[in-house]
């Protein structure tokens, strides 16, 4: 008997002194906490956020992102286009070297784009750059892009693509690029070099002493992968982490309470969430029904009650965070079930005996697909279901795993689906709204078709002048608030935490991966 008590006490003592011994902290390493590891370091093949983060340390684009998402010269020193915006001439920086010492020239740019545009490579974003007809070198430091049509995203997306080394990858046939070891052993021009990658655990980078931009202020970066949110929060609290990239509402609240010394970031994010409406389904093809659904859905109560107020009710597809483009002067859909019912009556859907509306013998009943079986999503769906019921629409909910959800919605086998969109600092909605962009061509899962919107999104993509473009997207926002393509739900916030010893160099802090745009100039207190 006493033996067992002794054993228990010894166990307890071991554990308690185990927690007293902290980890040694290297003051020269910036520790970034991420929830998931990246898949590859080759920008031609990665689609996840973590991979993009690492690539940002290792590679440089021609044009980088500055304050207010405006473009800044990077590997390109200047660029200009012909008046029709079909021919772009880009001047490249001299004296840039790859991490293996070789010089950066126009051959690298030409090779990168040849690989990206070749279908055999398998670049996942190739379809976005269909409009680029040709990329040619005009001397060692000049590149000429020829476009088949003008595109407002050329500067930000095309010129923002990282450049890869021709002298390393040039000999590999495009179709075999995917198998090359470049994804584990990259060569780049960027501010950092890969030190070591232990998959799903940690990836570390050291500064590039020969970086063309100047000296890098951070000697070493360690990205620690910790999929468990609580562990990430704990690490910020006890100081073993420096940057926590992405926090949920409750985690943020916990840090506010328990770690007041941390610098917390809370910024409107670039994502919109909404309910897709399949407008080939009877009922959903009628805009009055869609408007009624939006009037009948108490989104304020959901944001306030279920999301603790930590989101913004969306008024359209352009998120509030896009300050230069967001137009608040559109029709609002404040909660008004009476108006909803009136609209449905007008549309000819009259309440049946069980309270559900009917028309020509057909019940107004839909299935809502949600991706994810977690409680938060379920509660949201249940609330929507209840609100719809009280205006006479029957909604059943089906939760699916992500892969099946994508397959079903892209196959257009759905009535309603809860989804999201965005992440790009541009108001373009072409592939979502243009009437010919129904899958598999684009992302118009709704089969939405409105001639004015068609005109606006097509023209908007081809117009480069800000004032003209602004007017076009204002029109688009106004019209889509009347003829609803989707049921707008929320714009989210981006939350992050920084250790007080970390100092950013810019004052305009941008959300998501743009938080790290100036990481080479961050300072660490010692």
């Amino acid at each position, binding site marked *: 008997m006493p033996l067992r008590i002794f054993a228990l006490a010894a166990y307890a003592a071991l554990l308690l002194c185990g927690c007293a011994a902290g980890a040694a902290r290297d003051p020269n390493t910036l520790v970034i906490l991420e929830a998931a590891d990246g898949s590859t370091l080759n920008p031609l093949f990665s689609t996840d956020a973590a991979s993009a983060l690492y690539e940002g340390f290792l590679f440089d684009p021609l044009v980088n992102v500055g304050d207010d998402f405006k473009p800044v010269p990077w590997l390109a020193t200047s660029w200009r286009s012909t008046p029709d915006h079909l021919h772009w001439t880009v001047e490249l920086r001299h004296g840039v070297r790859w991490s293996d010492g070789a010089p950066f020239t126009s051959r690298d740019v030409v090779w990168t784009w040849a690989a990206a545009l070749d279908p055999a490579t398998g670049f996942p974003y190739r379809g976005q750059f269909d409009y680029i007809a040709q990329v040619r070198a005009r001397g060692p430091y000049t590149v000429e892009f020829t476009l088949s049509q003008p595109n407002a995203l050329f500067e930000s997306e095309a010129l923002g693509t990282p450049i890869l080394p021709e002298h390393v990858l040039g000999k590999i046939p495009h179709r075999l690029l995917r198998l090359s070891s470049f994804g584990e052993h990259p060569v780049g021009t960027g501010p950092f070099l890969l030190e070591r990658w232990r998959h799903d655990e940690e990836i570390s980078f050291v500064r590039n002493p020969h970086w063309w931009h100047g000296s890098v202020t951070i000697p070493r970066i360690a990205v620690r992968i910790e999929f468990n949110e609580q562990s990430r929060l704990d690490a910020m609290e006890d100081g073993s982490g420096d940057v926590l990239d992405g926090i949920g509402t409750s985690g943020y609240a916990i840090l506010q309470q328990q770690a007041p010394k941390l610098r917390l970031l809370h910024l409107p994010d670039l994502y919109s969430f909404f309910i897709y409406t399949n407008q080939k389904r009877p009922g959903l093809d009628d805009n009055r029904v869609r408007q009624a659904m939006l009037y009948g859905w108490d989104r304020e109560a959901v944001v306030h*009650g279920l999301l603790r107020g930590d989101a913004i009710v969306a008024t359209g597809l352009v998120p509030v965070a896009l300050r230069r483009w967001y137009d608040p002067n559109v029709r609002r859909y404040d909660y008004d079930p009476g108006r909803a019912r009136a609209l449905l009556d007008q549309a000819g859907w009259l309440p049946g005996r069980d309270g559900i509306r009917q028309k020509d013998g057909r019940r107004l009943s839909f299935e809502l697909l949600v991706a994810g079986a977690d409680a938060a999503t379920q*509660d949201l769906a249940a609330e929507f279901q209840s*609100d719809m019921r009280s205006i006479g629409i029957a909604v059943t909910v089906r939760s699916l795993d992500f892969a099946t959800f994508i397959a079903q919605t892209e196959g257009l086998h759905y009535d309603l689906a809860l989804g999201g969109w965005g992440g790009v600092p541009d108001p373009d909605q072409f592939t979502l709204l243009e009437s010919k962009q129904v899958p598999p061509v684009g992302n118009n899962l709704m089969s939405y078709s409105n001639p004015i919107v068609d005109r606006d999104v097509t023209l908007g993509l081809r117009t480069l002048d800000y004032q003209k473009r602004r007017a076009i997207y204002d029109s688009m926002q106004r019209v889509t608030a009347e003829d609803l393509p989707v049921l707008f739900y929320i714009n989210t916030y981006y939350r992050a935490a920084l250790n007080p010893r970390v100092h950013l160099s810019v004052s305009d802090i941008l959300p998501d991966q743009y938080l790290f745009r100036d990481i080479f100039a961050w300072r660490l207190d010692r």
Partner: protein
Amino acid sequence: MHFLRRYARRPASLVGIAIVVVIALVAAVGPFIVPYSPIAISHQLLGNPQPPSFAHPLGTDILGRDELARAMVGARISLTVGIAAMLVAVVVGTLYGATAGAAGGAVDAAMMRIVDALLSFPTFFLVIAVEALTNKFALGIIILVIGLLSWMGVARLVRAEVLSLRERDFVAAARALGAAPSRVLLRHLIPNALAPVIVAASFAVGDNILTEAGLSFLGLGVQVPTPSWGNMLQDALLPAVRSAWWLVATPGALIVLTLFGFTLIGDGLSYALGASSGRR
């Protein structure tokens, strides 16, 4: 009868029956009595679960739904799935085990090998894998899946009983009188093998209730908005409501109570049937 009196001799067994009967009654009748619907959401109470009060004896959940009404419907689901899945398992297991035991020899060995293989899989993991693969969460499918993944224990029991009964006098007598093998099986072997099956069945109901709760907790069982004790617990995990102890306590305590009842019944049956058949 003799066995009922043996059963009633232990107070614990009676307590078990009382518990299960009360829960069944509440499940059957309760939802008609309680004035709230288990799925009616309250906009005012959204995000603000209320502790137990006179109006809501078990409080409200994050969507303002009455917890008592939800618990009662959850009881219906649990009992239905528990008992129905048990019946599926018993029917399949009995037929399988009896056939194996009666057939004997290589057929029996092969059939039991299959049972051994099936028993090696972690059942709960298999259940959630099957549910996720098929993406079908209708109550009937859930019952079938749970039932079809739990019949193996019954099969083993029945086979063992049949094997030992096979050589007994009354079987030889039936055969001598020219009875066909299937008739021997159905009329003689199976009814006598049933005693341990009944005991196993009552424990099985409890196990099935736990499995269904786990399934719904992961979101792979009963779907929104129908409440099940399992998905009520999933709701209770949201960080916003961790302080709402009544949401965490209610479904869990009800599961423990229900299982306690069925376990006592199982123990009681084991005692009542074990001694009376003169074995052990």
